[in-house]
């Protein structure tokens, strides 16, 4: 047995050495030729139009970089940040990820994101001077960019003019023209539609009594904010917020202008007169359906205002393909592709925020709509609320707001108790 085993082990050792050698020898060649580089980007949209756009850009990138293959993984919108952070905590982070503006502080401060300035500025033709500083503010720290705000999208009101006319009301466009497009009139119109047709009046899309930060599209008109600029003081018990929330409460439960908790109305299916959402939803408008319009947010007691939501793309530092990912990000957000993305996701590029560029990529929208809603909104809009430790903070606020969304609610005490709950977290 013994001599045979010796021979066998010698063969085994030779084979092992041989294969190891082959592996080592081939590695530099592989790098030179380009071993396959699979990049994964998590997104929260499953919309076909959006994904087609992204896949098209990825295909273009692959033409110049044959080994890079980019896949876009859709995670559900409502639990997007939780699922993403679970992937990270589980040692399975993507290479690139979309980031909501409300969790931007957490991600930027976490040290998990790759600084992007060098990659972006180092890309020929990128023109990083074109990027507007106000859009970048949330995504920067100490002069370094940690995530690229590929979408700075204003909130606006989509209107179903058929329903509005059916209820015998003036259309919002007429109000805008007359300078009477205020929240009071908006709610009156919505209430009339609901009373006359039974359909929903005004729907704040994605709110559904869960994602409360979407209400910023309303309360900003009162000058209210959930917390102070520095994030340390609670804003819920301030007079502005109390007034705003009382207004919303009345709109829901007294005027029946907004669908109550547990009921839903989908504007794009024709079940609501108006909806507040971002222009990225324009792809949902039915090809031949109701007569629709797009108008800015109504005036609040504090006058005209605009609200924007942002979405950033970050590269995870610990990914083995981080550099490649950064290069792809630079390609995806260069001037040419930014123009393509502008159809749904307005870029932070000054040169592209002109009427002609946007009109080209937004065939659905009329020039006045683009001018009044998109361009003005981005220029003057305030970003939705964000804070460190957002997951816990938002859950506490959400639970506290549940006390407001009942027919017998007392708005002021409920808001006061929210402040009580979140004060220790804000102070951190």
């Amino acid at each position, binding site marked *: 047995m013994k001599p045979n085993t010796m021979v066998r082990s010698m063969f085994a050792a030779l084979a092992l050495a041989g294969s190891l050698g082959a592996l080592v020898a081939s590695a530099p060649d592989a790098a030179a030729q380009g071993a396959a580089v699979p990049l994964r980007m998590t997104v929260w949209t499953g919309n076909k139009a959006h994904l087609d756009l992204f896949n098209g850009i990825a295909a273009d990138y692959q033409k110049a970089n044959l080994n890079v293959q980019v896949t876009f993984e859709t995670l559900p919108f409502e639990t997007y940040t939780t699922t993403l952070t679970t992937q990270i905590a*589980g040692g*399975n982070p993507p290479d690139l990820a979309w980031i909501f503006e409300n969790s931007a502080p957490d991600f930027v401060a976490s040290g998990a994101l790759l600084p992007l300035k060098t990659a972006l500025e180092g890309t020929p033709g990128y023109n990083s001077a074109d990027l507007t500083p106000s859009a970048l503010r949330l995504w920067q720290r100490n002069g370094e960019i940690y995530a690229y705000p590929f979408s700075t999208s204003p909130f606006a009101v989509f209107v179903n003019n058929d329903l509005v006319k059916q209820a015998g009301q003036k259309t919002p466009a007429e109000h805008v023209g007359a300078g009477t497009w205020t929240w009071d009139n908006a709610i009156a119109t919505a209430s009339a539609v609901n009373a006359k047709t039974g359909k929903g009046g005004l729907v704040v899309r994605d709110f559904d009594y869960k994602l409360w930060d979407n209400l910023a599209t309303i309360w900003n008109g009162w000058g209210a904010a959930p917390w102070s600029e520095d994030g340390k003081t609670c804003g819920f018990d301030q007079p502005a917020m109390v007034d705003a929330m009382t207004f919303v409460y009345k709109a829901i439960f007294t005027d029946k202008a907004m669908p109550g908790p547990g009921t839903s109305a*989908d504007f794009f299916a024709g079940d609501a007169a108006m909806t507040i959402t971002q222009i990225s939803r324009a792809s949902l408008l039915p090809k031949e359906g109701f007569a629709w319009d797009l108008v800015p947010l109504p005036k609040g007691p504090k006058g005209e205002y605009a609200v924007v939501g942002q979405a950033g793309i970050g590269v995870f530092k610990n990914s083995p393909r981080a550099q490649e990912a950064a290069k792809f990000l630079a390609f995806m957000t260069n001037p040419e592709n930014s123009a393509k993305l502008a159809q749904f996701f307005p870029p932070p590029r000054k040169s592209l925020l002109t009427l002609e560029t946007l009109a080209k990529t937004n065939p659905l929208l009329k020039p006045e709509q683009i001018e009044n809603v998109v361009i003005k909104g981005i220029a003057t809009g305030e970003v939705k609320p964000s804070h460190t430790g957002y997951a816990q903070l938002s859950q506490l606020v959400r639970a506290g707001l549940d006390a407001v969304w009942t027919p017998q609610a007392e708005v002021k005490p409920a808001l006061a108790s929210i402040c009580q709950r979140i004060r220790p977290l804000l102070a951190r």
Partner: protein
Amino acid sequence: MTESFSPQVKVALYGLLCVLAVPFVFPTWWMVTSSFKPVSDIFAFPPALLPRSFEVAPYRQVFTLQPFARQYFNSAYIAAVVTVGTMAIASLAGYAFARIRFPGQNWLFLVVLVGLLIPSEVTIVPLFQMFLKVGLVNTHWPLILVPILGAPSVIATFIMRQFFISLPAELEDAARVDGLGRFGIFWRIALPLARPALGAVAIFTFLHSWNLFLEPVVFLSSPDKFTLPQALTQFVDAYGGPMWNVQLAAATLAAVPVLVVFVVAQRQFIEGLAHTGLKG
């Protein structure tokens, strides 16, 4: 309770049974019929018992929106592996605790029983960390190993032990005389007799694995690895309209096959469970 009933009492009893059966049956009925309705009809008032028109589109969408077939397969093969594995481990351990005398067996049985006291949520965080360290997060290994070897299989061991305790000792003595070793006795004599108990264990274990929700949500983050319960909650698209009919179609696809199997084999199902020895 052996008197025969007067017709009035009979009618009353049947009536009562029918009324009681409604909340058990109506949801399933509603799920299947609503999956064929157009979205706007689902919340129509008054609720319609039968769909006005049959739309098959949602069923197709179930498969295009997610790797649903893959996810179905995931749930099925994981449940099958866990069932077979648990049957093996539980019958071995249950038999040993019941019929073999070895020192410390009562203490060891108590140690195993501790598993019954521990809800899966208590240990999920350290289990997550353990699997993270060996790089097995986002694989199916946690969903297979933990049910077979951990807390969920303890009840299976308990059932098997109860059953084996009730076996007459003479059977084993006879086998001994024939020269069978302990494993032989187990394999040739005890196990074949344990069919009803094994059947019950198989049912419990399969259903438990099929329905696991927290564990897949914690361990799995890639859609093509998801299991069925997890997948069912993903049919929402914020950038699209409500997909209720698609959700219901997916739910129907998940529920109906098992239901059909159950109706066909319901006697074995129920009688197997009744004879688990849990009655004491």
